Each structure stands twice: as C-alpha cells, then as structure tokens.
C-alpha cells in the first residue's frame, strides 16, 4: 500500500515542479530581455562614449584599455557604446514592424475569418503568395530597390511577418464564428464591428501575443542578416548585424568586435524565445476557449 501512496506523492511533486519550472522560464526570459533592452533604451545615459566619436589614433584597442571596457573598433570608437546603441535600430524596427504586422494580421484575419467569401479568398491567396517568397529574399528585393531607411526596414519586416498573424487569427476567427456565443451576439443584433471587437479580439489575443513573440525573434534575425549583408541602416548608425559583418574579419585581432554584438543579440533572442514559450504554455494551459476553467 505504501508504494501506492508514494506514487501519489511523487506525482504531486512532479506536477508542482513543472509549474514552478515554467514560471521560472518566463522570469528568466523576461530577465534576459530586460538585461538587453533596458541598457539599450537608456544607452544615452549609460554609454561611456558617443557611438560615433572616432579616434583614429586608438583603433582596435583591446578590452579594458584606455577606459574602453570592451575596447575600440576599426575607427577607434568605443565598442561598448556601439553595442549599446547598436540595439536601438533592431529593437525599434522589429517592435514597430511586429506591432504593425500584428495589427494588419489581426484586422485582416478577423475580417477574412468572419466574413469569409471572396474577401477571405483574396486576402488568403495574397498571404500565400507572400509566403511563397522567403521573407529574407523579399526584404532584400525591397531594400535593394527602395534603399534602406528606418521606415523601409520596418515595412519590409512587417511585410514578412503579417501572413503568420493573419493565418492564425483567421483560423481562430473561423472557429470563433461558429461559436455559440458569437452566434448569440449575431442573434442579439450586435453589429459586426462590435462582435469583432468584443468577442473576437479578446479571444484571439493570446495567440496573437504568442505569434508576435515568434515574429519578434524572426524579425530580429532578419534585421541582423540584412545588416550583415550590407542592406541595413546607414553604416554610421550602429547596428548589431552590420557590426558582426564588419567584425568578422577581425576575429584574429579583436574577436569581441563581432562577438559582443552577437552575444547581445543572442541574449535578446533567448529571452524572447523563453518568454514566447512560456506564454504559449500559459495560454494553451488556460485554454480560454476550452471548456471549464
């Protein structure tokens, strides 16, 4: 008998640990994100030097020399300051782009899912078409010919990530449309826009948030890759991707040049992913649409 009771306790312990662990995952993720994002936001206050102030007499200085904690780059600019500032472009671009993509995806997805018919067909096909061009390639085409600026970068990243949001929101909206509580609203003569706002939006939100975290990390990678391929923002604006590209030839002399921005990006991505996983766990466990509580 005692073995059976032991089993019960073991089960209970495991359950507790799982809950604890997934909570920890979220906290670690948020901590990592904060660790990168906060210094980047407050770069003007924290950074010891201007990211563009060059000193041609002290190029490629090693770490901890001459007041440069991470050393200097090829133009004698303080690497730490550049890493701090270098996160601003990716963060601004990706946040704005994901926000934009989410709004577009949610609006189109809800409309297409709710209305169905040719509108749905048209938007869905457009999303399919968009998806058939790999997003980096599409971004390259757009940037090479529109030139890269903050706005074009944002648009290009948003263009690449709205289909994911759209598809998910649309699929959810299609099943929501058949939900009795939505039909009840229809029967209660609630206008379509109100149904979308009051019933669809809150119910698709969890998935939207989870998808947005996925787009966030994909977007960060694309911005970095674009910078790396030389299609990022103008080169005197520090940007992690471009910094890695410029630093990669200096690995022998000053490996920090490529690795420092790379690690900053890595920590941010890791944080975003952990938070995303955690949110996904959270929401599917709660399963807002699932029966019961």
């Amino acid at each position, binding site marked *: *008998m005692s073995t*059976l*009771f032991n*089993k*019960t306790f073991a*089960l*209970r312990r495991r*359950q507790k640990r799982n*809950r604890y662990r997934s909570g920890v995952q979220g906290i670690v993720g948020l901590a990592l994100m904060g660790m990168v994002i906060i210094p980047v936001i407050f770069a003007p206050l924290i950074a010891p030097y201007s990211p563009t102030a060059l000193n041609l007499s002290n190029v490629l200085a090693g770490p901890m020399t001459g007041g440069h904690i991470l050393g200097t780059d090829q133009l004698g600019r303080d690497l730490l300051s550049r890493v701090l500032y270098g996160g601003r472009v990716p963060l601004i671009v990706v946040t704005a782009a994901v926000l934009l993509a989410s709004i577009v995806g949610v609006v189109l997805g809800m409309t297409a899912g709710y209305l169905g018919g040719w509108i749905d067909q048209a938007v869905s096909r457009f999303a399919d078409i968009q998806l058939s061009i790999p997003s980096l390639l599409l971004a390259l085409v757009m940037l090479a010919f529109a030139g890269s600026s903050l706005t074009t970068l944002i648009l290009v990243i948003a263009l690449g990530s709205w289909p994911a949001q759209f598809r998910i929101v649309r699929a959810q909206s299609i099943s929501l449309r058949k*939900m*009795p*509580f*939505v*039909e*009840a*609203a*229809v*029967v*209660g*003569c*609630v*206008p379509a826009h*109100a149904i979308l706002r*009051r*019933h669809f939006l*809150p*119910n698709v939100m969890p998935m939207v948030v989870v998808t947005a975290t996925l787009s966030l990390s994909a977007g960060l990678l694309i911005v970095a890759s674009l910078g790396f391929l030389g299609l990022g923002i103008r080169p005197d604006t520090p940007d992690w991707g471009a910094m890695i590209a410029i630093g990669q030839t200096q690995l022998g002399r000053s490996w920090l040049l490529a690795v420092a921005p790379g690690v900053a990006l890595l920590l941010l991505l890791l944080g975003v992913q952990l938070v995303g996983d955690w949110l996904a766990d959270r929401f599917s466990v709660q399963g*807002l*649409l699932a*029966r*019961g*509580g």
Partner: protein
Amino acid sequence: MLNVDKLSTDIVTAAGVVHAVDRVSLSLERGEMLGLVGESGCGKTMLAMSIAGLLPASGSVVSGSIVLNDRDLTRLPYDEAKRLRAQNIGVIFQNPTSALNPRMSVGSQIVEALNPEDRTSAAGADRKCVELLGMVGVPRPWDRLSDYPHELSGGLAQRVLIAIALARNPELLIADEPTTALDVTIQAQILDVIDRLRSELGLGVLLVSHDMALVAERADRVAVMYAGRVAETGEVGEVFRNPLHRYTAGLLDAAPSVWSTGHGRTRLLAIDGTPPDLSAPPPGCRFAPRCKFSESRCSTEPEVVRLDNGHTYACWKPAGELLEATSAEMAPDVAPDHGAPPDGDRGQPLMSLSEVRKEFVISRRVLGIGTERRRQAVAGVSLDILEGESLGIVGESGCGKSTIARLLVGLERPTGGTVTLHGRKTAADGRGEQTAWRRTVQLVFQDPYLSLDPTMRVRDSIAEPLLYKGGRKRAVRDLVERLAAEVGLAEGVTRRRPNELSGGQRQRVGIARALALDPQILVADEAVSALDVSVQAVILNLLKDLQRNRGLTYVFISHDLGVVRYVCDRVAVMYLGKIVETGPTERIFSAPAHPYTAALLAAVPGNAKRATLEGEIPSAENPPSGCRFRTRCRLATEKCALEEPVMQNVEGDGGGAVACHFPLARTEGIPLG
C-alpha cells in the same frame, strides 16, 4: 468474476488531490450487466478506468483491490496486470469517433488488437477482422476495412470499437457511456448488440451511463454513484421501483419520462445545488448538503445497509415507502399547470415556414474537376408557429432540426421557400426590419460552456444585445439585474466570468441573454441536453415559468422525447430534412401516425414494446427518392419509392398531419417488435 473491494483512486491536479473514487466495492458475474449511474463528475469513469488500468498519468489507485478471476490486479507486477487486462477486459468509450485513431484505417486498428496467433498472416487477420465486424453487425464488413474513422457514422464507429474490444475474447466489457453521443435509434441498436454478445459470449458488462431509463431497461443490477462513493446498489427493478437512498430517489424524480403519465401538468422535482468538490468532500453523508431531508446525524458517515435481496444503500434516512408522501412535501412550490390544454385553436400563426429549403454546398468543382456535393439539410418544410404554444421538433441527428432553428432566428438564409413573421416575409427585408425581426426571435443554445464568451463577465454578456439596441447604460444595468433575478441568478453571480459558473448557472445566463430583447419567440435548440438530470429539471422548470409569466412562444428542439413530452404542446417530427408528422403532443405520443414516429418512440428505453429501428439515416446529400423513410420502413412498398407522400390530416384525437402513404391507424399502435 470481477470483485472490486474498497477501491480508492486519486487524481493529482494543480488544485489538489481529487479523490475521484472513494472506497468503492462492486462485483460482477459472467453474463451479467451491471449499470453504473450518477451525475456527471461523480467518478463513474474513473472507477471504470481504474478497473481497466487506463487512468490518466496523474491518477492512481491508492488503496483497495480489483480481483479479476481470483487475481488481484492492484498487486500484480505492471506487465502481468497489463497482459491480464488486455486478455480479459474490453473497453469502449463515450465518443466513438475520437476513440479511433484518425490516421489509421479501421482494418489496421482492429488487426492491432488481435491476439498474436490471429495475426500470423495478413489474409487470416483480415478474415478475423471481418468476422468481428460481422459479429457486431457492421454491414458489408469487407468494405469497411479500408475506411477511415472520419468516414464512419457514430453508430458504425461504436460498433468498430466493440469489435476491437472483442478482439481477444474478453470476459468483461467495460462500456463507458457507449451511447451518449448517439441517437436513440442508434443507441438501441448498439445496446442490442451488447445484449446479444452478452448472452452469446457470456460477457460480463459494466455499463456506465447517466441515463437511468436505459440502465433500468438493460442492466441486471445497478450501482448508483455519488461523489466518488456508491450510494446504492441492487437489482435494477428493485432499486428503481423502490429507491432507498435519497439521492437515487431525487434523480428518478428529476427525469421527465416519455412513459409516465400526467406530463405537462406538474413541475419536475429538481435536486438543488451541485455535487461536492471531490478534493475536499463534505464529512459524513456526501449528499447531505443537497438533501432536503438531512439532519444532524447526516454529518457522520452513514453505514452501508444490506437488505436480504442484495439491495444495499448508505443513507441515514432512506426514502422507501415514504417516497410518495414526501415528494409533495418536498416540493411545496409545485404550481398547477400554466396554460390551457393543447386542444382547440391556440391563436394566430406568429411565424411560418413555407416550403423552406436549405442546401449546403459541401464541396465545389475545381476548374471543372470533381463533383459538386450539396447537402439538403432542410428539404421543403412548411410549419406554423402559433402564438403562445410550445412547439417541439424531434428527429434523429442530422435531420435538420438545428438548421430550422437557425433559419427561424436568421442565422441562415433559406435557399428556397419563405419564412414569414407576422405574415411578412423576412428574407427580403431591409436591415432595420431584419433587426426588428431578429429581436422578436431569440435562441437558447445547447452547450452552456460554449455559449458564453469566456473573456467576458456574464453581466456584460447579458447586457450586450441591450447596449446595441441603444439602451442607456444605467437602464441597461438595472434591466440586467432584473433579468438575472428572473432566471434565478444570485446577485454576485453576474459579476463572475463563465468559467466560475456551473453548467446550470451558465444556461440561466444564456436564457437571460435571450430574454434581454424581450422576444416573442424563444427557440431552444437542445437547450438542456448537455445538462445533468438534476440541473435539467431546474432549467425545464424555469422555462415553463418564463413561458407562463411572459407569454412566450417556444420552439423546443430536442432528441430527448421525454423532455419534449414534458415541455411541448405540439410536436413536429423530422426525418432527413422533412417533416413527417405534426400533431398535439399527447396524440403523437399515444397514437403516432407515421411509422418513423412510432419507431422513434419504440427505441426509447423503458418502452414496453421495445423495438429497434434498423439501419442508419441515409445521406442528406443523396436522399432516397419518394418517401425518405422508406429505406428503413417495414411497411414500404413500390409506391413509397416512386411517390413522395404529401401531408394529410390525421383524423380525430387532436388531429395533426402526417406525410405517409400508409399512416398507422390509432388501433394499430406501434407496429414493430
């Protein structure tokens, strides 16, 4: 053969340990059928799964024994117990379609279950599969082997599951609500199969169900469970005729039945409250908090009393012969019947359907390739809804009941025919008129869990239609409180979110929301079928009260004929998109004129002249010519295949109409069995 002694099963959840089964003792002999009944969540499934060794990962048997043929399964090593169970216990589940692997063909799923010696050759295995499928009455078993689960109807899938369960010649069959998801007619077929197998193979059957009538009809013995414990066991006839535990008595009172007389007259006797939380069950008698007869000693655990005839119960204040007397005393608020009897003219048709059709396109042709598939959900229905009546619509699954409901409230537009409200066509109206129409007709949904937005507080759900009617915030709030009170929701409840409510409370919210716009017609599509008997009784009473107080007209859709008989004045019987018979409730139930109505009634458990309607409903994509019911009708002739019967009046006795070439005369009664 099977002896369960003081079995306890715990489930570990985030909220705590649920004692789903608590010191339960049972026994079952070969060839015997033991029914296990009780409200939802009382531990029936967990008990069955403990025996079958299929508990969820978080669950485990913590004490007691399960002795199968003299071997205690709880004490055997894991592998040995598993082997023993696989050999001796077959299990079938509630939802047959999802219990089959959607990815694998029927054949390969049966083959997997065969004994190794039956699997030595492919052809041999196939033959064995076919044999099994034949045994459970699957037509053309060879053709089924390559079918996939989603291509099977519920009845067929359940037969396949039984075939799988029988693959190793078990001695014990555990059937967990095997027919809850099925129609009455299919339910009867499946239970017939189980009955036959029981006698042919000497199977012992543990039948889990919440349908008392079904257990009463089929089982030899019954065990009534409440909150993880067995409240009462005994011979079926004895227990149901003479329930001793107050809980059993309450359950029996709560269920409206087709066969008991005097329906439409009295209120149902509901059990108040909800079953206790099994992670912290109340001390003493677990039913005490809901029991109208509880007294101080009920807070200690009642002893199990065993009578000579094997009838056991655990109650301090058994019902016994006192039942009749007390039930009146128990329900002081019994009200006399509301309206006038259903005879005579009830008023103007408020709403009418004439020759209404609804076709769904299932798949279109693509660039001229493939076939277009259309499904006729409603195929020419004419029906009047009279002011102040309760019209019942009954029929098997898929016959178009819900579609009619949706046409009535405007969720679907007819593809043919017209829907008129107050004599005005609805379909062609402009937006404003549409809104007015919709506000006159409201819908109550089947599923209390899905009919409320989980992200919204319930008072906002109720208020929603009012807000968009242009109500002022303050007035709306007051109205919501009034409505909530009217449907019997306590004050604080409206501030909660749906997941904090019980099923019954949610259904009350759903009704309040439908009433918010002060409609004339309330369409209730299976409004109580997802609820436990006890809750169902409460909601049915509520609906009746509302009708009386507000003068509502009901369109009441249900596949539960007992409920329909209790609620409705007039009934329309549907078969495959058409109405085959209409008439006053009493006439329909006592003297059905259409063979299908008769067959439907015959399939209801508890019918003395039990009979089973064979076959399944034909496809709505390609309905049979002439009379649609002819493929399953024993009276069908050549004429039925060639000519479509028209509605003709039924003589005398409250009248009504029937669409049959050979309507049954009153004296004929039910022609089957």
